[in-house]
């Protein structure tokens, strides 16, 4: 079928008109303004006696102990090496044998005394295995803000600050000393400090 020339022209004009309408509707003025800021986080870190890591050795010579051994004393300098204050810090103590396994007689016959030397405050003085099982009472803060990381220590640790703790381990019964069943046994005692910024 042939299309009359006039009809074709008319159709062309109509399409052009629609095109103009479309262009007019979309041509709004636009503008933009913006704002920005910079946000950075701090960090936390702990050192114990100047060392970092999770497997530090206390360097205590406690081998071949006799039943009335001299109390084992060790100073622990806990330092916040980060840029953020620690809102709370914790000590978790574990000792092999407290669960009844190898070394149980020795572990259960030991007593621990933990002192916050910096603040002249005794934090704990009692059975080693009680401290390992449920650190509470005395200088520990209860209820702890965070759980599962041991007992909450009584003082916060600001950025760059240090707290000196002293740990003393001795027989629970100082008069009787270690029991005979504790001969030729050993226990490994671990102290783990954890800090939180909140």
């Amino acid at each position, binding site marked *: 079928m042939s299309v009359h020339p006039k009809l074709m022209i008319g159709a062309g004009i109509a399409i052009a008109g629609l095109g103009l309408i479309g262009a007019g509707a979309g041509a709004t003025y636009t503008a933009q303004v913006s704002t920005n800021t910079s946000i*950075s986080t701090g960090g936390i870190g702990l050192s114990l006696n100047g060392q970092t890591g999770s497997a530090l050795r206390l360097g205590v010579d406690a081998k071949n102990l006799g039943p009335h051994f001299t109390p084992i004393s060790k100073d622990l300098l806990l330092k916040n090496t980060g840029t953020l204050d620690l809102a709370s810090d914790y000590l978790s103590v574990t000792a092999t044998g407290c669960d009844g396994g190898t070394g149980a007689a020795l572990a259960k016959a030991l007593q621990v005394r933990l002192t916050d030397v910096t603040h002249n405050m005794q934090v704990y003085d009692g059975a080693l295995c009680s401290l390992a099982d449920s650190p509470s009472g005395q200088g520990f803060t209860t209820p702890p803000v965070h759980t599962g990381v041991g007992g909450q220590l009584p003082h916060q640790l600001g950025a760059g600050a240090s707290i000196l703790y002293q740990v003393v381990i001795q027989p629970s019964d100082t008069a009787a000393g270690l029991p005979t069943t504790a001969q030729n046994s050993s226990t490994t005692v671990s102290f783990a400090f954890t800090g939180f910024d909140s």
Partner: protein
Amino acid sequence: MAYSRKVLTVGALGVAALALIGTGAGATFHDSAKAQQTITAGNLSVLITSPSGSTSPDGKTVTLNTLTNEPSHFSGPQETITVTNNGAVPATVTGFTAADTTNNAYLQGALNIQIVDSNRGEICNDLISTLEKGTGFIPIPWGGTTIATNGTMTVYVTFSSTGNTDVNNGGLPQAAQGGWVTPTLTANVTG
């Protein structure tokens, strides 16, 4: 001189045609009236300012105070941002576009932004990373805020860690320590 009938007929038609042409050209009354109007296009222009930030010389960008050494659970100060219509036509803020640069994806992924219109209420309260997905456009829920000429729109912007009120849950992840992020919020305006 004698003319044939055919010739006479042609001559008569020719006169008649001339007469019609003459009637058309000379017998038209006419007048004209003209209306004119000057149309000037208005300009759309907005400026942005903040009492706690510094504005660029062109007034189009405000840089807020830097938040540094933030802990795992934080909520920055509520920043007041004012968009001023200094143009000649009403300006409608249709929404904001969020973007950022960062060196720490963990921080970026856990950073929250809340935008509140001082008159209408909350525009958004979500992770920046979530808002940035897709086009990054954050529409104003009620369709937009129109600022009259010389008028202003004030919004409050607060950056925070997720779960900033719960010390045991939420907050920035451990790997966010020592990171930085520079979020940029752009107001989209139409006139």
